[in-house]
């Protein structure tokens, strides 16, 4: 029964991919908005999570504003998928260099353009993260760590479809230390999303003033490899027009107090992400359960 469900989902995804491939960008984006609206109307639980997150974070002043913003964010999420699919075809007619504006400090630019320099790239589910990785891979090869999808057929399809140019993906469970460290040693950017819930293996730090469990791997990877951390995100400023922002580079020396070192790094990165989200809140994925640690039950951590 499960297999049948997975095959049906796979067929639907294939059909959608084919449709999006065939449609012109403008029509595909309109379709994305329609699908986003449909998802907003039908996925009540996700919608409630998004509205709640928008209110609790202080981004939306009231429920009405939160509902409006959540709808825009749902549209944007589907748009992220569609623009990612369309990007290659679009850039064959409009060179990607003409579609991307770089807002990157000089020191970060030098790191990105140095083929010997490995960089830990921190980002979140903000803006057009897929396109961001694609365009950045023209400056520096990227290894992204991805979570396996529940549907194995769709998972295999995405692993074939997503990598572009010098952007490759490794499933999270295959991401052994040797592979990650090897990528950094080879001068690649190791891209890590910092806004996924880390369950009991994370460290609780504030994000928008609320406790959120954050993965410690990015901080430990920096501390043991000494490779600089760059925080980056890519906003869509017009249809198929993007602005790539980066802050940093961030470097932290280990002090011997591991908990404190990791906390310092995670707090800095969460602050960077929070500031970025505040700059374009309608492009953040508000519908995910980032804050699963109840405020009054947040464990006291050093």
């Amino acid at each position, binding site marked *: 029964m499960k297999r049948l469900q997975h095959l049906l989902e796979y067929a639907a995804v294939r059909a959608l991919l084919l449709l999006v491939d065939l449609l012109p960008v403008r029509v595909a984006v309109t379709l994305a908005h329609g699908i986003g609206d449909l998802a907003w109307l039908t996925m009540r639980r996700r919608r409630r999570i998004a509205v709640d997150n928008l209110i609790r974070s202080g981004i939306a002043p009231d429920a009405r504003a939160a509902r409006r913003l959540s709808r825009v964010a749902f549209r944007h999420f589907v748009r992220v998928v569609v623009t990612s699919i369309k990007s290659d075809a679009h850039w064959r007619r409009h060179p990607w260099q003409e579609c991307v504006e770089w807002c990157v400090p000089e020191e970060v630019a030098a790191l990105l353009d140095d083929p010997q320099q490995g960089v830990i790239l921190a980002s979140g589910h903000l803006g057009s993260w897929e396109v961001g990785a694609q365009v950045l891979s023209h400056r520096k090869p990227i290894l992204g760590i991805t979570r396996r999808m529940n549907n194995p057929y769709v998972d295999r399809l995405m692993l074939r479809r997503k990598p572009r140019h010098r952007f490759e993906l490794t499933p999270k469970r295959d*991401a*052994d*230390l*040797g592979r*990650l*460290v*090897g990528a950094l*040693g080879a001068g690649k950017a190791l891209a890590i999303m910092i806004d996924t819930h880390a369950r009991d*293996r994370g460290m609780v730090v504030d994000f928008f003033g609320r406790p959120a469990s954050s993965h*410690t*791997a990015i901080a*430990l*990877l920096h*501390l*043991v*490899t000494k490779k600089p951390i760059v925080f980056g995100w890519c906003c869509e400023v017009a249809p198929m027009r993007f602005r790539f922002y980066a802050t940093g580079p961030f470097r932290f020396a*280990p002090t*011997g107090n*591991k908990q404190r070192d990791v906390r310092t790094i995670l707090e800095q990165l969460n602050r960077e992400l929070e500031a970025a989200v505040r700059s374009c809140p309608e492009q953040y994925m508000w519908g995910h359960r980032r804050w699963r640690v109840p405020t009054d039950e947040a464990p006291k951590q050093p």
Partner: protein
Amino acid sequence: MVRTQIIDRLRDIMARTATTEHDWSRIGEGDTIASLGIDSLSMLDFVYDIQQEFGIQFEAHELVAVTTVGQLATFIGERTTA
């Protein structure tokens, strides 16, 4: 630092970072690190602790070829006497 001291301190570090329980006093040179419940995330903790505890600096990729506790003790011994 003598080899037995290095292995004793490694047992302490592994006991803190491993995700599975072991009788750490019985862990010896021939045991593989992978068999001790040290996954990729624990490995990062492990490397941090080794660098700090032994006061040595090394490129993390140098550890990739190290698979047993004995090899790790040799790796650390070479750097602490260097």
